[in-house]
């Protein structure tokens, strides 16, 4: 009996989300009076694996296998299931990102384990095991009972604080038989070195109120000065002013940064659905009655083209740039 966390790596490195998962799992393990094991799939150096111990994992299981080099949801499900069975895991915790969404439901079927997806808090109780999750695209939350012996949770990104602890984790290499993947990668197009929108803690986002694709300079600069990423609303990406990668909202990316600055975005329900998990929302809009002000904690009513340069200036001063 223990809590198993699948910690994904990106080119051999973990990210903040990995440590969030372990921190969360440690608290769940405390509720259940057990310990945390972390599972890593792929080639990760020992000193990187050891970092997971710093957030409360007592055992780190590392699976390295050539057949796991390509991400194949069926294969990864098989690996996690075998490890879960081996250590008798009762709760399995995975990130609610692309990988987690691809693997967790398959694992639920394979282990006949109830799945609570997009969970944003610690379980409300462990007997019965009840989780708290986002529903109706952020317009509501729900308490859901997971009724099976084994439970799976996918944790919403940026919903849990990091908790550092003493690190005395042991690392174990686990040999597992992995089938040849049924997914074959033909081509990869990847941007490197750019802060990912889903990882960013500060996001500056523009809507139709930016008026033209040529007006984006100060918005991009503000994001740069603040160390954040840029995003946009759906009409902007539909018009081709900005790339689809930046579209934030119900049908685009769902993000939960600490600070979301919405410029010239009126705040349609579908847009709010993608950003309502943000800790702070700032709205800049020339229409005082725009619905974005209902969800924003800070606002400026006025012309974005006049306001943005002032913000850039002030941010530069604060940041000493």
């Amino acid at each position: 009996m223990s809590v198993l966390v699948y910690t994904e790596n990106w080119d051999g490195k973990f990210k903040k989300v990995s440590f969030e998962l372990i921190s969360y799992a440690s608290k769940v393990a405390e509720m259940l009076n057990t310990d945390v094991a972390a599972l890593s799939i792929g080639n990760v150096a020992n000193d990187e694996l050891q970092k997971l111990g710093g957030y409360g994992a007592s055992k780190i299981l590392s699976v390295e296998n050539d057949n796991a080099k390509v991400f194949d949801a069926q294969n990864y499900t098989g690996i996690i299931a075998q490890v879960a069975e081996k250590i008798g895991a009762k709760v399995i915790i995975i990130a609610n990102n692309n990988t987690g969404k691809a693997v967790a439901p398959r694992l639920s079927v394979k282990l006949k384990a109830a799945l609570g997806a997009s969970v944003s808090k610690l379980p409300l109780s462990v007997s019965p095991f009840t989780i708290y999750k986002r529903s109706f695209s952020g317009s509501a939350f729900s308490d859901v009972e997971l009724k099976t012996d084994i439970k799976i949770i996918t944790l919403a990104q940026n919903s849990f604080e990091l908790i550092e602890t003493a690190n005395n984790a042991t690392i174990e290499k686990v040999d597992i038989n992995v089938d040849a993947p049924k997914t074959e990668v033909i081509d990869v197009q990847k941007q490197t070195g750019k802060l990912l929108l889903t990882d960013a803690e500060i996001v500056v986002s523009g809507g139709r109120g930016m008026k033209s694709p040529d007006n984006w300079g100060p918005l991009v600069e503000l994001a740069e000065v603040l160390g954040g990423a840029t995003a946009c609303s759906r009409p902007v990406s539909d018009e081709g002013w900005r790339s689809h990668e930046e579209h934030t909202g119900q049908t685009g990316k769902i993000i939960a940064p600490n600070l979301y600055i919405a410029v010239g975005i009126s705040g349609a329900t579908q847009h709010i659905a993608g950003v309502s998990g943000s800790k702070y929302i700032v709205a800049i809009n020339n229409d005082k009655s725009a619905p974005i002000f209902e969800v924003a904690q800070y606002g400026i009513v006025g012309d974005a083209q006049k306001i943005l340069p002032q913000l850039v200036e002030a941010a530069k001063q604060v940041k000493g740039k």
Partner: protein
Amino acid sequence: MKILVCISNVPDTTTKVKFTDGDTKLDTAGIQWVINPWDELSLTRALEIKDDASSGVKSVTVAHVGPVTAEPTIRKALAIGADSAIRVNAEPSDAYFVAAQLAEVVKQEQFDIIMCGIESSDYNGSMVGSMLAEMLNIPSISAVSNLKVENEKPIVTREIDGGKEVVSTSTPFVAIVQKGIAKEPRIAAMRGIMMARSKPIKLYEPVAVDALTSYKKFELPEARPACKFVDAENAKDLIALLQSETKLI
């Protein structure tokens, strides 16, 4: 080659949701029901693929698990252009239950490509497509933003962190689709609406499956505190305010 598009019937995305029975049930009064947005895009893409004769795709079927009250949504899918529809006559209790019903449909009817939206806009589980694939022991590809079929061979683009991967896989498989799969949902034309009336909706009775989860209670999000306004002339004060109050800058 046959494509199945799984569709969910959800409240219109602008609905202000309310709950009844001590916040244990969705209050359906006054709700407009629509095809889940991602499923509608899946259907659009499936029809585009079928329209291209070189794909080898001969038919597009939609399947839905739900009571008879969902039939207007199914008819809408037929009006948009699906060739036929299947309804499993059951009140969906959770994603596992729904996936098990769809698995039975796929076993009986044999599809080559099964398309599911990445999530439904109501319960936001992101589960049914992947569960279905595991039940059928077939591959699934998630976060699919493009699907092409050339001479019955599917080529799939999936989103990864910071980019895209183009992959191929064996059939049958489940494509779990997201934004990008089609530009705009296809709209039903008058002719489609007329034709939809005579298209078949095949009825399946549900297989017995126990749900793994149960929704106990719903609540609305806490109201955010009122917005603090900064004067546009002194916009720079916003940065100072964010610095002192949020400590994020």
